[in-house]
């Protein structure tokens, strides 16, 4: 009788533990499903943005890509690539359909792009590309004299050790800003100009400078 009771309670305990285990694994399963769906939603838009010359460039196309990317962002908010892609699509919109936009729409596109770039930077603070994109967006809005622009340029320069394309963008943005640039940002840009990519040492003092 006792043995029967013991085996019965052991079985119940086993069942309860198994169900708890299943519930615990359901948490990463739900995350994996969300990430998978987000990737599926974002893939066509990311491929579209990666193409050197985007084909079929129209407002409808941009709208549908934005819709997909926003779905992806809702499903996986920690995905910096999707946030940056949303910002990029708004920038493409501004670049190609500027004349058809009124002032409110223009501001809205620009603000959304800035918002999503800040979001990407929060998730990947060492990405020089996001910093350079943010600096570009701020300069477009005529905020080249702001502290945020200076920060963005400085960080883009700091983290762009292996990215010559970003370094060139930083130098160009620094030139465009001229005297309005903060002293720290100007120093960072000058450093890049003085030490062009071809003459950079293998290990730049990014890590060393942190200490």
């Amino acid at each position: 009788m006792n043995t029967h009771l013991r085996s019965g309670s052991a079985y119940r305990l086993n069942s309860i533990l198994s169900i708890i285990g299943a519930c615990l694994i359901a948490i990463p399963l739900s995350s994996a499903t969300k990430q998978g769906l987000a990737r599926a939603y974002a893939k066509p838009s990311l491929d579209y943005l990666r193409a050197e010359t985007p084909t079929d460039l129209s407002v409808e196309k941009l709208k549908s890509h934005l819709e997909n990317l926003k779905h992806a962002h809702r499903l996986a908010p920690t995905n910096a690539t999707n946030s940056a892609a949303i910002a990029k699509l708004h920038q493409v919109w501004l670049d190609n359909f500027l004349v058809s936009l009124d002032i409110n729409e223009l501001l809205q596109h620009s603000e959304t792009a800035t918002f999503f770039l800040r979001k990407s930077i929060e998730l990947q603070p060492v990405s020089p590309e996001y910093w350079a994109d943010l600096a570009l967006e701020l300069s477009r809005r005529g905020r080249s004299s702001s502290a945020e622009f200076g920060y963005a340029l400085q960080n883009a320069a700091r983290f762009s050790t292996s990215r010559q394309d970003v370094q060139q963008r930083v130098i160009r943005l620094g030139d465009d800003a001229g005297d309005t640039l903060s002293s720290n940002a100007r120093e960072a840009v000058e450093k890049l100009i003085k030490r062009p990519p071809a003459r950079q040492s293998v290990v730049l003092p990014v890590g060393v400078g942190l200490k």
Partner: protein
Amino acid sequence: MVRDSKEDFNRWIFYTYLTLLVLLPISDAGGILATSIVEIWIFTSAITWLLLLAAGRVKLSASIYKSWPIVASFIVAVLWTHLQGARLPQSFLGWLSPAALEIHDVTHSPLTLSLDLQATSEQTLRSGAFVVLFCLSLVLLASTRQIMSLFTVLVASGVFQASFGLTMVATGLEYGLFEPKQSHHGVVTGTFADPDQLAGYLCACISIALGLLFSTKSTARGSVNDYILSSKITQPTTWLVVALAVMMTALVLTHSLVANVALFVGLAISLIVYSIRIQGATYRSVLTIAIVLGIQIIGTLAHGEPLWDRLVSAVEDGTRHAKVALSVIDDFPLTGSGAGSYAAMSATYHSIKPTSDSIVNPVSDYLRIMAGSGPLILILLGFALCQSLWVGAKSMDPSTHKLESGLWLGATMTLMITLVQSAFGSYLQLNAIAGTLMIALAIQWSLARIVRQHQHIPSRASPLALRRRIPSNLPPR
């Protein structure tokens, strides 16, 4: 005759698990979306199995109880990876990782140990999935028959990859999985994007096939000669030899230096241990090493560039990348810069590109893990590996059945080869190799339990009980 429903459920879950093994190498070609599918597959299989266990439809294997320290260390590793993405108080972060705090101060980003939250969250999910795969392997690989089935599927998957790659090169079609190859024309890549990736996977499959070969034939000297002379096309061993020939040909044609070195070193170490533990296997071990070395030498000679030049170039490339990894480790010594963040971090430290056109990063997995996740994870993984290898080797002795010792040899060779490969490149980033590593670890525990069970039968059970408990799937000694 009424069919046992428990057997049915077990079988279906096991088939799902075997299908996953075929999907793993294909997922490496399918990009990040395919990785999500693999993760969902693993988690769903585990949940289904647990629900069946709760309903009393499947049984829990004893291996999972015995291996609790390994499971616990893996869980701690996943929790640590998760913690790297969590926001921490400023003082605590400053104490754990001053460099991370300094970067967050400059960039005004959330105070986390990780400097790439996206990569860290992806890495946490991936690590979690592989830990679950390890546990799933422990509970599903409960008999030698199941391990044999697993080995057969792995060999079949390796042969598929090898023949697919060879066909694409021979016919000039040069396709990857579904699209034409972007690079590496004339080199065997299978469904992978890169020949080094295929070579890494083939090494694991070759060692599994060798393990199967050792488990099917006697270790006596005469038997090898007898086998060679009397082989028939219907014998499973003949198919294994054909499979090995196909995979070795593809491996040689990948021109992968690291994989060839890893295969030879891993094979040699495992066979030496095997010869020590299982007496009478020396002749066969030496013969196998000689054959593999011979094929590799022929392959090296066939490759135009001198071996010495290739070695020097590989060492120079590896040293330059190792310096970058060491710089990252120097700045983030205690906690790393966040699991999976190495790609983003290393780009801020250097302006070098690999001299070879390989996609496999020439940074050692050990350095990458140390730079991303910190020393804690490396210690936990090292403990899991050493403990599993020790348990497996300890269970083997001259009285062990050749089937079990052969399977153990296959799993051990896979582990050794992966360990050597990981010293030279980022092979554990591939789902196929990381998955095979976890399975090989689980096999060590499963085999140790199976061997222990068989060894304890004569001393503890009556002849009648003995007859009842001997598994029917074991061939006679």
